[in-house]
């Protein structure tokens, strides 16, 4: 479970990539920039999945999130024609952003200290799984678990996707289209 050699370099690079992209996302002025930062953050999370030997989930993350959800966001940005965000001139309390970042920093330091003390989260040296799974084996295990233990949620997910497709079509159609249909 412990990372070795270049894995450590990858870990720090990906962690900083994800966090910098996330901070840039919530500070971005234009929504298109935010979508691109979201894409960077999602790719970084997929890299962290690879470090944790979840190859299939990393691939699914790239395909579905980066290839699907972010593209959907960009299409919607194109449709709604967002202008740049204007911050209000009058605010009662203007330091709220600094206070929020300070709170996040303090909570992060507290979490790091608390988790570092938790020795149970570090597996003992003898308990390590010796050889990581091959790519095909990981996919095989995910697939077999998906079709045996998780078969019922899998079918429910297909129903959810059907409802999402029909619902989004009904929500997004115009009044003229509704009248034509009726």
């Amino acid at each position, binding site marked *: *479970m*412990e*990372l*070795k*050699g*270049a*894995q*450590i*370099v990858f*870990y*720090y690079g990906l962690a900083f990539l994800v*966090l910098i992209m*996330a901070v840039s996302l*919530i500070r971005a002025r234009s*929504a298109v920039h*935010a979508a691109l930062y*979201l894409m960077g*953050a*999602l790719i970084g*999370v997929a890299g*962290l*999945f690879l470090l*944790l*030997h*979840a190859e299939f*989930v990393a691939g*699914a*993350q790239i395909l*579905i*999130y980066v290839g699907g*959800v972010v593209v959907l*966001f960009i299409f*919607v940005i194109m*449709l*709604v024609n*967002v202008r740049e*965000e204007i911050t209000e001139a009058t605010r009662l309390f203007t330091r709220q952003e600094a206070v929020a*970042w300070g709170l*996040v920093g303090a*909570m992060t330091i507290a*979490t790091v200290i608390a*988790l*570092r003390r938790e020795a149970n*989260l*570090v*597996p003992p040296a003898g*308990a390590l799984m010796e050889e990581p799974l091959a790519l095909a084996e990981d996919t095989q295990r*995910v697939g077999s*678990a998906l079709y045996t*233990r*998780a078969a019922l*949620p899998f079918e429910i*997910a297909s129903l*959810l996707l059907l409802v*999402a*497709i029909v*619902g989004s*079509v009904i*929500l*997004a159609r115009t009044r003229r289209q509704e009248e034509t249909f009726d």
Partner: protein
Amino acid sequence: MHEVVIGWALQEPTSVFGRFLEGVAAPKGIVDFLVVSFMLFAIGVLGVLSRRNILIIFMSIELILNAANLNFIAFTRYWQAMGRISENMGHIFTIFVIVVAAAEAVIGLGILIALYRNRQTVAIDEINLLKW
């Protein structure tokens, strides 16, 4: 990870950089993944609370869901390394989270398009009526 990619560093375990990495900076267990996950979650919550644009609030929600996914994967890896579980159900949970997030994004953006057609705005503080 993959020996082909990282072989260069494993061949030089006695270099100063390699010893620094192995000794001081090496992530132990899953603690550091949990820290990244927590910081991602906190940034996502901050984005939801501080922005006015609905699109960016949606993207922050995606960040929060990704933080949860990272926790699932990290704990699956940990319990597998401990030998307690052989299945990777955390991966299954993560796949379902991705599916539900995709459906949620589709529905939310559909609502957003309908809203924009009626109100010509995506600022969340201008949308303060349940019926218009």
